[in-house]
């Protein structure tokens, strides 16, 4: 749960989570194991196709939410179920409280329901004097600890066996040891007694199937089966987003949900409940059954053109499992009630701006969540969108609007960068690094050396090195991005050298500016849009075969971000939208261009047999789906490639993120460097100047001899 009042308090919470050794180890092990078991579970399946089908079916269903509700209600009522619809969480709690009181129920057993967590149902029922026992083992454990879940599927993942043993010692009144198998059996017996006494069972629902009026739930423990069988009253609390048109739709989701959640082909139990079942504890031999649907903003979401896709979520928790930030700080710091990437978004809609405003800034935009989401939800973009909305509602922080203002005006921005070079001398001591940052910027930055502004920007060097071509093979516009332009111009120079050799005509339109990703990340939509427009105007796609960039982040933002910012759904006119489409289609990253378009060959490079390892930039491997080209180029370029562990996990740069959350950034970098150093390579190659800034800075700060190079440099140096 999020109680932090401001970013400072929130950072404090992050700090203590980072210091929690047990949590860190547990989460690390989990992240690594999860990746392997997920891959195994989906092996041989057309995952992309399945995700597309689920997304499409869900979108269609959510567009007719009320129709499905009516159909479900009609069918369910015909079977004898009472259907309720609650506008808010409070209303849902009151309805359930009343059901309990009317049926004279005293003791309640519950199976896991995130929706009940959302409404804080237990508090309400306990205030009414009812006894509530969670029967999912993880939920029971956190209930005993009076805390919220830290994962949607494994709510007690943050606790050790010894903490559980202490809790169970209190429950049983006798000392319990930290033997997991025994502890589970203690829970078995203790909870069996609770079922025996309960007169009401509350479950969630993975599906509310309209065509039949069926509620279906998935559990591994089988507690759902007992909760819906023993007590004489059953209440299912279900979000309106769980309305599913047909059994086919449910089976389709069922194919993906357990695989994505825990790497299981299916959960141990799936119970399909159609109407009140036989119940010998009920006066007439039939259970009293209620379904309570919760709106709490879902109807509004369904109509939101940008956010309706969050209703595709099936609560598998995978977006947390792969999130590098979640892995470091844990669920209590990465969500309010809903956790992980989807939690950052849902918190805003279901629990309000106050709870969401700090959380939503803690996303490094690595795209790992989006890559595994079975609903195909564009989570990172929506997280930024929530951030932007909050800033529009609350007012933009000074830093953020300043940056936005400066970036909108290219000339002012570039003048500022140039004058920064002039004043930085006292802090670089003549080295290529900033040695003594002014206090204002220095907070928490000791973990890496920050580079200085280069002597001469790339834009000022270009005319002198422009390749002279006759009958060029391709016409290419180079988009450098700020970092290569002003900090690492040598990378772009190296690229030009290669292009010249292969008879490519290169242009460097001087009106290009920052790609706009930093302001997009900070929720400055206005200026993000404005720079996008400027760049599309500066690099006229009709004039070039390709728009080439050596920066993975720029490339993915130009290719996928621009059509969203300026595309047909935005306010842009249709001519601009078409031009943006053409622009985006022509954007290509350096590795793909060199390997797939130029088709370079090994014979064209000197072999020096040096050992190199690779860091896969988030925005290249997931943002653009480019994974093979750069790795192939290492070998083609005459180097020996030594793969590192977790090559595609974020290095912690994330642009402005690393200034805002330096502690998290430093930890991500530490892990990354440990993995690359383990390979024994002398060279670390990658294809994003932002990552290079982070990696080189980290190695420099720890005094490592490993060299970091852009792939373009490594290739240019070895070009025959």
């Amino acid at each position, binding site marked *: 749960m999020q109680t932090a009042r401001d970013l400072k308090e929130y950072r404090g919470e992050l700090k203590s989570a980072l210091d929690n050794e047990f949590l860190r180890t*547990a989460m690390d092990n*989990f992240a690594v194991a999860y990746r392997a078991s997920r891959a195994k579970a989906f092996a041989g399946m057309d995952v992309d196709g399945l995700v597309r089908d689920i997304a499409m079916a869900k979108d269609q269903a959510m567009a007719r939410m009320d129709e499905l509700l009516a159909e479900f209600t009609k069918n369910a009522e015909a079977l004898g179920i009472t259907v309720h619809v609650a506008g808010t969480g409070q209303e849902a709690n009151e309805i359930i409280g009343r059901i309990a009181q009317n049926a004279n129920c005293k003791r309640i057993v519950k199976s896991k329901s995130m929706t009940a967590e959302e409404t804080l149902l237990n508090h309400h029922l306990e205030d009414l004097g009812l006894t509530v026992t969670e029967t*999912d*083992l*993880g939920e029971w*454990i956190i209930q005993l600890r009076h805390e919220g879940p830290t994962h949607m599927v494994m709510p*007690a*993942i943050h*606790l*050790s*066996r010894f903490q559980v043993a202490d809790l169970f010692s209190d*429950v*049983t009144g*006798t*000392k*319990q040891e930290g033997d*997991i*198998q*025994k*502890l*589970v*059996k*203690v*829970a*078995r*017996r*203790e*909870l*069996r*007694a609770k*079922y*025996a006494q309960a007169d009401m069972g509350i479950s969630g629902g993975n599906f509310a199937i309209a065509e039949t009026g*069926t509620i279906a739930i998935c559990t*591994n*423990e*089988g507690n759902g*089966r*007992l909760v819906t*069988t*023993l007590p004489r009253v059953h209440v299912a609390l279900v979000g309106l987003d769980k309305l599913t048109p047909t*059994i*086919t739709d449910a089976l389709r989701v069922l*194919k993906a949900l357990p695989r994505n959640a*825990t790497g*299981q*082909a*299916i*959960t*141990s*139990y*799936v*119970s*399909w*409940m*159609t109407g009140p*079942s*036989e*119940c*010998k504890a009920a006066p007439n031999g*039939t259970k009293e059954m209620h379904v309570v649907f919760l709106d709490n903003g879902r109807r509004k979401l369904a109509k939101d053109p940008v956010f309706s896709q969050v209703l595709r979520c099936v609560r598998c928790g995978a977006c947390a499992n792969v999130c590098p930030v979640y892995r470091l700080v844990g669920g209590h710091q990465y969500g309010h009630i809903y956790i992980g990437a989807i939690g950052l978004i849902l918190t805003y809609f279901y629990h309000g701006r106050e709870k969401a405003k700090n959380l939503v800034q803690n996303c490094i935009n690595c795209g790992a969540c989006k890559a595994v989401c079975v609903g195909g939800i564009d989570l990172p973009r929506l997280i930024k969108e929530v951030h932007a909305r909050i800033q529009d509602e609350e007012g933009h922080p000074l830093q953020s609007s300043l940056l936005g203002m400066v970036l909108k005006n290219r000339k002012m921005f570039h003048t500022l960068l140039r004058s920064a070079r002039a004043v930085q001398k006292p802090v670089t001591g003549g080295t290529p690094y900033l040695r003594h940052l002014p206090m204002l910027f220095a907070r928490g930055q000791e973990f890496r050396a920050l580079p200085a502004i280069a002597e001469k920007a790339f834009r000022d060097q270009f005319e002198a090195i422009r390749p002279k071509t006759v009958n060029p093979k391709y016409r290419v516009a180079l988009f450098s991005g700020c970092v290569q332009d002003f900090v690492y111009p040598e990378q772009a120079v190296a690229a030009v050298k290669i292009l010249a050799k292969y008879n490519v005509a290169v242009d460097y339109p001087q009106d290009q500016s920052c790609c706009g990703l930093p302001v997009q990340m900070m929720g400055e939509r206005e200026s993000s849009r404005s720079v996008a427009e400027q760049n599309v105007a500066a690099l006229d796609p009709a004039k070039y075969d390709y728009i080439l960039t050596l920066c993975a982040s720029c490339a993915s933002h130009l290719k996928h971000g621009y059509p969203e910012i300026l595309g047909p759904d935005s306010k842009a006119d249709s001519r601009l939208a078409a031009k943006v489409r053409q622009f985006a289609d022509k954007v290509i990253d350096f590795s793909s261009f060199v390997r797939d378009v130029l088709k370079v060959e090994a014979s064209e490079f000197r072999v020096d047999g040096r050992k190199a390892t690779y860091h896969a930039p988030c925005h290249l491997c997931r943002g653009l789906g480019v994974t093979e080209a750069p790795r192939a180029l290492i070998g083609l370029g005459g180097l020996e490639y030594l793969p590192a562990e977790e090559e595609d996990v974020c290095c912690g740069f994330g642009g402005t993120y690393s200034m805002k959350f330096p502690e998290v950034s430093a930890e991500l970098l530490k892990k990354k460097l440990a993995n690359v150093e383990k390979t024994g390579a002398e060279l670390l190659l990658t294809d994003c100047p932002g990552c290079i800034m982070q990696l080189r800075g980290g190695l420099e700060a720890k005094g490592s001899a490993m060299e970091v190079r852009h792939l373009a440099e490594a290739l240019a140096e070895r070009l025959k």
Partner: protein
Amino acid sequence: MSENTRLADMMAEKAGLVSAIVARIKTLDEAFAYTLDVCDKKEACQLLPSGCESDLSAEAGALCETKLGKIIAAPGLSADQTRAFGEACTKAGVEFLTEGMRSHLAGIDIGFTIAEAAIAETGTFVLDSRSEELRLATMICEVHVCVVPVSTIRETSFEVEDYLRQLAKDGPSYVAFITGASRTADIERVLAIGVHGPLELHILLLED
């Protein structure tokens, strides 16, 4: 290889992956004998770590004490099957139940069922669970033995969809997909079997 054999093999393999114990039988009598054998070899509430030996709160401990002797429950059988299995149990000195599960919530030794269908690709069987006795028997037992007629095995869940729909259209129903024993990984992600339901699952593939 016939389609039935292929599906039966797939079912056996996939169920094995989730630690179900799979055996092949030719008649129901074999299934009864198999079950009695399992029952004979297990020691009620002692051999299997069902929690009885643990220190419990007074309430949970008291519930535990209500169980005496060995019990097999088979609530969903036809009259003939019930008679045959009942006689076999009596002969073996095992108490045989078809109802009254609510007075045995502390646990029974074996729950015996016959599945309606199965899904080979996940090792799942499908149980019509409309009867409360059956639902309880399969949850409070320490060992669940389920007979799966080979002719009812399908490859994917979509092939049992019509069955599900038909049942749902015929009035109130409760259908269960069961795959492996009751499991949890809620403490330190360590797999533990039998947190609420059976500690062991046996699937008997009946060649029919």
